[in-house]
């Protein structure tokens, strides 16, 4: 177990380095810099600015300097929002995004697990077919279609829920539509995975033994089958966090939520380079951290993985 954890922990910095390097290469390979903007600049001023931001140094030096800043947690000033640094913007907006993402993930786990387990227990009955078809639909329809459609039905036509506004975590009615929209594809995926995982073990010998001993069916399913059935679901959690964060870009745009996702999209279209980079790195770190946690969890519940 210890060597497994060590291996995982050693891989994480490597992944960070790859991510950061690819991002750096993309920025530097692109034509134009932060100052080749709308107006032509006085060459003297431009030279001074380039010197200030160390753009006149050799590429390797810039890379090292940039990595150093990154290690100190300094993501630089925003080019477009002149009064704020990237760090401040991220600190302001990230909590909202994380809150929404966590809410959706919990919702997806709750709904998906129940649907998947019930589907496996009643394999090939009407309930099973209905949930699997629904899951297929949920997987196929992108969130940016589901979101506006839900707004159309529940906010515009029925008037049950507010249209697009965000008033903080203490106003649940404003959170329902965004959280549900973001959760749908993950609930669908989790339902399919947990059903498949359950079906894999439900006919195994140890389950038959548990039943033969006379354990109640509920106990057999929850205590004996569920842990093994959870393996594919836990394996999915790492990539799910990445997909949740990408999904929240769209959700925050649709529902006008002041989160990091909206900031990222705006900075990407405004070419606010430092903010884009800072956001990518923060997102990357979150994804890596969650991947690491999911991998460790997987090692705990699936002994086979540890000794691979």
């Amino acid at each position: 177990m210890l060597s497994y954890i060590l291996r995982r922990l050693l891989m994480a910095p490597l992944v960070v380095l790859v991510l950061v390097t690819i991002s750096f290469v993309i920025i530097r390979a692109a034509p134009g810099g932060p100052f080749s903007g709308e107006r032509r600049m006085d060459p003297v001023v431009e030279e001074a600015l380039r010197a200030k931001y160390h753009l006149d140094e050799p590429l390797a030096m810039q890379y090292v300097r940039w990595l150093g800043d990154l290690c100190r947690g300094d993501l630089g000033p925003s080019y477009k929002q002149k009064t704020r640094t990237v760090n401040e913007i991220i600190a302001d907006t990230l909590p909202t995004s994380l809150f929404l993402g966590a809410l959706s993930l919990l919702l997806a786990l709750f709904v998906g697990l129940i649907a998947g387990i019930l589907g496996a227990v009643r394999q090939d009955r009407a309930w099973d077919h209905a949930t699997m078809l629904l899951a297929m639909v949920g997987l196929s329809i992108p969130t940016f279609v589901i979101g506006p459609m839900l707004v159309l039905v529940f906010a515009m036509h029925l008037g049950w829920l507010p249209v697009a506004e965000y008033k903080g975590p203490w106003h649940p009615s404003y959170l329902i539509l965004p959280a549900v929209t973001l959760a749908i594809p993950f609930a669908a995926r989790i339902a399919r995975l947990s059903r498949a995982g359950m079906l894999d073990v439900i006919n195994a010998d140890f389950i038959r033994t548990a039943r033969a001993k006379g354990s109640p069916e509920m106990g057999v399913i929850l205590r004996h089958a569920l842990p093994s059935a959870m393996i594919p679901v836990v394996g999915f959690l790492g990539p799910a966090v990445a997909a949740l964060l990408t999904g929240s870009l769209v959700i925050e745009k649709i529902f006008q939520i002041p989160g990091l996702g909206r900031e990222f999209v705006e900075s990407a279209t405004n070419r606010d380079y430092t903010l884009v980079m800072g956001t990518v790195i923060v997102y990357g770190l979150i994804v890596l951290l969650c991947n690491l946690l999911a991998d460790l969890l997987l090692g705990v519940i699936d002994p086979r993985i540890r000794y691979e």
Partner: protein
Amino acid sequence: MSAAAASPTRESLCRLLRNRIAVAGLVFALAMSLACAAAPWIAPSDPTLPRHWLGARAPGFAHPDCRETNEFVVGQSVEISARAARAARIALTARESDSAATTYRLVLRRGTVQITAGTDKVPVLDLTDQHAFAVDVDGTLGTQRTGMVITSGQAPPAGLFAAGEQVVLLRLQGSSREVAYQAAIDGGKVTAVTRDGAAVARAAISGEDVVRIVADGNELTVRHPLGTDIQGRDLLSRILHGGRISLMVGAVATLVSLVIGVLYGAISGYAGRRTDRVMMASVDVLYAIPFMFLVILLLVYCGRNILVLFIALGAVQWLTMARIVRGQVLSLKNREFILAARASGLGHWRILTRHLIPNCVGPVIVYGTLTIPMVIMEESFLAFIGLGVQQNGVDSWGALIEQGHANLTRDRTWLLIFPASAMALTLLALNVLGDGLRDALDPRTRDRS
């Protein structure tokens, strides 16, 4: 079919054809691709031609086939829609207003409506046999209102105010009369123009005034089966032309991912030992990277180029393909036919391309089919957040959905519903087809996801 005669391929095909949902998916996906390929014939309207005076019109709307400005100048080529320009005689009826249009301001206060025109209070606005257009914030004409009587101090007719709306502007066109223009055209040049029977040297009619165009005795109208978008562009045509981009991105990026993934996986599996370990460890590292953010970065820095998109999306998707092919090659490479090929002196490259890769076709097709909807979804996602690519001014499905969403109101729902359904149904069709293919090629996986 007798078991002895059935080859594995035919057996799989039979299994696929028995799966009704998968067949429905196949039929729908093919039909959608054909419709998009035949877009210019199915929806002849130019998907990029704006008709600003129309604005967003409901499905089924029809209007005379004209341009923003229609001009006849004697001795010059005619300035009118392409269909009309081919005729020898054009008769055009236009509306000319005698008095200016009036804009009424309707304010909803505590359930009753107050009508004003300029500074004057208006007691009643009778629209039983007149048309008025709602004026949007940006000045464009929106929904047409007719067949209602609005009285100051009383509750407004149902549907006049959208939920939460407090103020509505209605523009009533002033009284007008119809003017008849005739033009004779010879070899693309106008030879004579008359206005109400009197010869004139030139006539210019703006599109919103045109009532009717008759070319060589045929009335020319344009019908918009799915309505028009906010700029008056035909929605059906936009969806079908947009589908070309979306489906093409899906196909090409999948092909890119297929080539990279198959080669990488096959080489890794075939080489084995340390090469395999290093190659698969790098796949593990890459798996952990949130690639969509890098694709966004790439599009921001390299500009929105369709080639960048092909390569970027393809490069994101090859990892799983590489793993699948590697697993397949690992299980094949010690089989007798490979040993025989090696014994007969074939080179490694030949063994890979002639013997190993062809035997991976099944899983590659299955995963390839499932990759197409994934890529289409990713492209639309990028388009939705404003990083879509345009080909000759045509937007992809994601961009259409974005426009539909941005201009969504209670009574303009077709702007969102049609492009969204086109895309959702196509993705669903491709997904059920991919699932069906997997079940057909390997029935044991039927219970997995």
